[in-house]
C-alpha cells in the first residue's frame, strides 16, 4: 500500500510540473505569436535575388513553385528584349537557339511599331531565372522571380531559402504575399 501511495504522490507532482511547463511554454511563445507582423508565406525579395538558378533545382516540388513574373508597368516593350533573346543573337527570330527561355515559356505579341508585349506561361516556366537575369542586366528589370503561392507547399522551412546565396527568400505577411515591383 505504501508503494502505491508513493506512486500516486509522484504522479501528482508530475502532473503539476507538466501542467506548469505547458502553461509557461504557452505563455512565453504566445507573446511571440501575438507580436505584430506575424509572417507566414515564403517570398523572394527581387531586390536581392541574383538569379542564380537554384530556385529551379532546389524546390521540394518536381516543378519549382518559383516562376518568373513580368511587371508590365515597368517593361520597356523592347523588340530586342534582354529576357527574351539570348545576348548577341544574330537574327531576331523565334528559333529556339535564339531564345533565352529553355522551356519556351515566354511568348510575345506585337503591339505596335516597335513595341512587343511579353507574357509568361506559368505551366512551362521552371523558375530558372535566365530571363530575369537577362532583363535585369540589359533591360528594365521587369522580369523577376516570385514564389507562386498557389503552387508553393509553404514548407515549414523553404528548401530554396536555405541554399539561396543572396538570402533573398524570407517569410512575408499573408497580406503581402508577393513582392511585386509594381
Amino acid at each position: 500500500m505504501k508503494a502505491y501511495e508513493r506512486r500516486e504522490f509522484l504522479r501528482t507532482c508530475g502532473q503539476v510540473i507538466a501542467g506548469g511547463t505547458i502553461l509557461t511554454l504557452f505563455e512565453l511563445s504566445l507573446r511571440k505569436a501575438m507580436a505584430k507582423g506575424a509572417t507566414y508565406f515564403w517570398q523572394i525579395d527581387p531586390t536581392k535575388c541574383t538569379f542564380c538558378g537554384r530556385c529551379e533545382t532546389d524546390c521540394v516540388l518536381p516543378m519549382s513553385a518559383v516562376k518568373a513574373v513580368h511587371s508590365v508597368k515597368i517593361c520597356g516593350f523592347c523588340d530586342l528584349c534582354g529576357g527574351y533573346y539570348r545576348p548577341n543573337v544574330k537574327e531576331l527570330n523565334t528559333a529556339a537557339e535564339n531564345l533565352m527561355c529553355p522551356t519556351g515559356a515566354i511568348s510575345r505579341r506585337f503591339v505596335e511599331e516597335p513595341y512587343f508585349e511579353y507574357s509568361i506561361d506559368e505551366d512551362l516556366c521552371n523558375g530558372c531565372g535566365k530571363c530575369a537575369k537577362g532583363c535585369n542586366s540589359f533591360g528594365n528589370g521587369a522580369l523577376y522571380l516570385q514564389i507562386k503561392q498557389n503552387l508553393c507547399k509553404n514548407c515549414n522551412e523553404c528548401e530554396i531559402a536555405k541554399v539561396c546565396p543572396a538570402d533573398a527568400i524570407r517569410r512575408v505577411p499573408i497580406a503581402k504575399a508577393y513582392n511585386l515591383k509594381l
Partner: protein
Amino acid sequence: MNLINHIKIIVQTTNRFPKPDFESGYDYPERHYFVPNEAFWSYIDIAMLVLLMSFVAWAVIRKQVRWPVILTSIISVAYFGFFRHGCVCSIGAVQNVALALASDSYTIPLFVLLMFILPIIFTLFFGRVFCAGVCPFGALQELVNIKNYKLSKTVTTILSIFPWIYLGFAVLFAVTNSRFIICRFDPFVGIFRLGGELPLILFGVVLLIISVFTGRPFCRFICPYGAILSLFSRVSFSRVKITKKGCINCQLCHNACPVDAIRAPYENKVKENRSAGVNRILRYIIFLPLMMIAGATTMYLLSDNFSKVNKEVQLYDKVSENEIRPQEIQSLELQAFYGQGRTVEELKTQVAAIKKDFRIYSGIIGAFFGLVIALTLISLSTKRTRKLYEIDGADCVGCGRCFSYCPQNQIERG
C-alpha cells in the same frame, strides 16, 4: 533595413528604356497573383486536430473500442497527409517554438503554436491520443501494421534514446536559426506529396515495410515529438486501460501491443533493505551529474563543428578563404556577398555571435543528453514490482489493439 530595401527598389526601377507612348490605345493587361486562403485552412486544421483527438480519447478511454482509431487514421492520412501535404505538422512545430523562444526576430504564427501545444495538452489529460491516429505519420504506420514481432526490451530501450538525441539537435539547429532538420529529413512527407527527394522517400518506404512487421518504428525510435509526448503521458490524468474489469493475468494481451507498452507482472525476488536503497539513490545522485557534465563538455567541444551547418558560418568560411587566396571564378555565394556590398568585418562579428550561441546551446543540450542516457541506463537496471499486466503510459500510443484480446472485455460484450 526596410528603408534600404525601399531605396533599392526605386533605384532598380529607374528605367534603362522609357515607358513607351502607345498610339494605338494599348491597355496594360491585368496580372493576378493568386493567394490561397491560408487563414481559413489553418482554422480547419486546428478544428480537425481537436475533433479527431477528442474522438480518439472518447473511444479508447471511455468506450474501449478500436474502430474509431482506424477511422481517425484513415481521415488523418487523407486530410493531413495527402490533402494538406503534411505541412506544418506538430512534430516540426517543435522547431518553430524553439526558435520563437530563442529569437526576437522570429514571430511564430499562432496556428503553428497551437499545432504544437494542443496535442501536448490532450496528452496530459488522455495520454498519447494524438499519436493513436491523428498524427498522419502514426496513422500511416498504424494502418499498414499487421504483425508484431517483438524486439527485446534492452534493444528498444537503447534505441529509444535516439528520439531525444534527434530532438536535441533539432532544437540546437532551430534556436541558432540554422536549419529545421526535422523538416529536412522528414521520411513521409515525400510520400504524401507524391514526390520529393528519392533517398528520403525510400527511407519512408523502408520504415513502412518495417512497420508491417513491428509496430511504429518511426514513433518509437525516431519521432522527437513522441519523446516529448511520452513525458506528459507518463503522468496523464486518465489513461488507457486494457480492461475496466480487472486483469486476471491470462497473458493474452501481452503480444497484442505493437509498441510493447504492456508490462508483464514481475516480482522483485530480493527485497531491498533501507540502507541498500539509500546507497542506490546516492549512487544515482553522483552518477547523474557526472553524465550531464560529460555530455555538456563533449557537446561544447564539438560545437564548432555543429556551427558549420549555419549558412552564415559557411559563407564566412568561403569569404575568408577568398580573402586569403582570391579565386578566379567566384562561387554564387561569393558573388552575392560582394554584390550586396556586405563587408567581411560585419560578417565576422555576426559569425562570432552565432558561434557563441552554438557553444552555449550545445553545452546545455549536451547536459540534457547526459541526463537522458543516464536515466535510460538507470531504468534498464531497475525493475518495478508489478502484480498485474499494466500499460506503461509513456509508451502506449492508444491504438486500442489490446482491448479485444482481453477475455474480460469479451464477457462484457456477451
